[in-house]
């Protein structure tokens, strides 16, 4: 049975924790809004890019000279997994759900006898994946010092990926990140970026027909070659932004839960504290009364 003083200390410590989690929740909420705005601001660019490329690639389908980024190397042996996670923890299942998805994917590929290479973005993913796939990790990028996530950072990652690709280091690249659905729901997603795949609306829209009427300056081929590497950067950028928004969303709900749990705990502790105090008072009263009676 803890003494009154122990209980008091515990209540004080839980209260302090609650204050921290509450502050973290509010910070996450503020940052979430900004991250969400950034993700939304990036959407038009990515969408247009996708549309233009879908048109171009449809026009180039079956072209044997199509750039490798579009058609792939024709092999399926070496896979590169780009795993984007957060820099910090305390965000519920955010990091672990991305890592789990990536790990399952890697194990499946390994079981099929393929070679797996991993590029981690973010500290958390690197720490965990290093434990089980130490020899598979080829590169590690961290944005720890970066305050505002910009296109420059995505470009940096894309550069590395393209460098590896051009050196023939891998055949297929898949990007792992958490897609932001809402504050309470983030879905870990795997997206193939090399060879490029475009949204399902390719056939629905008459882009194929209209692209034939386009004048290209310089040639179609050159534009495609220019755009495809850029597309990799854009896809990575979008993933990073989504990830960022997801991270703050996850952190917000995790911290909200923590604050609520701390509140419950304080209630319980206060109850037993009061009960014990009452018991002590009663005990003292009995002592006084029985002492008086004995006289």
């Amino acid at each position, binding site marked *: 049975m803890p003494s009154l003083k122990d209980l008091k200390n515990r209540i004080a410590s839980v209260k302090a924790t609650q204050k921290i989690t509450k502050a973290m929740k509010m910070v996450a909420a503020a940052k979430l809004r900004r991250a969400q705005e*950034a993700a939304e*601001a*990036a959407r*038009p*660019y*990515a969408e*247009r*890019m996708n549309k*233009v490329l879908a048109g171009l690639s449809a026009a180039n389908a079956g072209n044997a000279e199509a750039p490798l980024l579009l058609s792939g190397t024709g092999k399926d042996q070496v896979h590169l997994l780009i795993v984007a996670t957060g820099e910090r923890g305390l965000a519920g299942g955010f990091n672990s759900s991305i890592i789990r998805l990536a790990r399952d994917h890697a194990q499946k590929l390994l079981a099929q006898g393929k070679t797996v290479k991993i590029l981690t973005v973010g500290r958390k993913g690197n720490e965990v994946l290093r434990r089980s796939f130490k020899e598979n990790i080829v590169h590690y990028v961290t944005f720890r010092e970066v305050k505002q996530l*910009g*296109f420059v950072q*995505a470009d940096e990652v894309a550069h590395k990926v393209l460098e590896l690709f051009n050196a023939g280091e891998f055949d297929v690249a898949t990007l792992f990140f958490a897609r932001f659905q809402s504050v309470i729901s983030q879905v870990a997603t795997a997206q193939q970026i090399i060879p490029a795949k475009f949204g399902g609306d390719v056939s629905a829209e008459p882009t194929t027909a*209209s692209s034939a*009427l*386009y*004048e*290209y*300056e*310089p040639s*179609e081929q*050159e*534009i495609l070659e*220019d*755009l495809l590497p*850029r597309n990799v*950067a*854009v896809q990575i*950028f979008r993933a990073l932004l989504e990830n960022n928004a997801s991270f703050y969303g996850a952190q917000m709900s995790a911290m909200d839960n923590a604050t609520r749990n701390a509140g419950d705990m304080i209630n319980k502790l206060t109850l037993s504290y009061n009960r014990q105090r009452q018991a002590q008072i009663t005990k003292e009263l009995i002592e006084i009364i029985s002492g008086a009676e004995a006289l």
Partner: protein
Amino acid sequence: MADAFNFELVSPERLLVSEKVTEVVIPATLGEMTVLVNHAPTMTTIKPGVVTVKLASGQVNKYVVFGGFADILPTSCTLLAESAVPASEVTRDTLQKRIETIQAEINKAQSDEHKTKLEQFLAELTHLNGIVVPA
């Protein structure tokens, strides 16, 4: 008064302009081009340079873009820039910084082709440095 058409200037980070305009001058890779309404559908890459936009209200805005491509249709024009800023916000320092990063990249570049491309880019930037910002 010429007819207006929709013009959008988009960078990966945000949508800079989405307005009715009468005339846009684009620094295309093969030379500057002026886009008016009813332009033939064209797709072109762009080099670093200045985009001049003449709004339907007659106001003229200038933006500095650093590479990208433009999608031109008879009724609209979309410019996807790798990076874009209003000309008034560009200073010699920011340009200088870009020039330095490109220079560093040239030193690292392995293939000649890549190097040539970067050097071309650098030349454009240096040129831009001269014209955009009157010291």
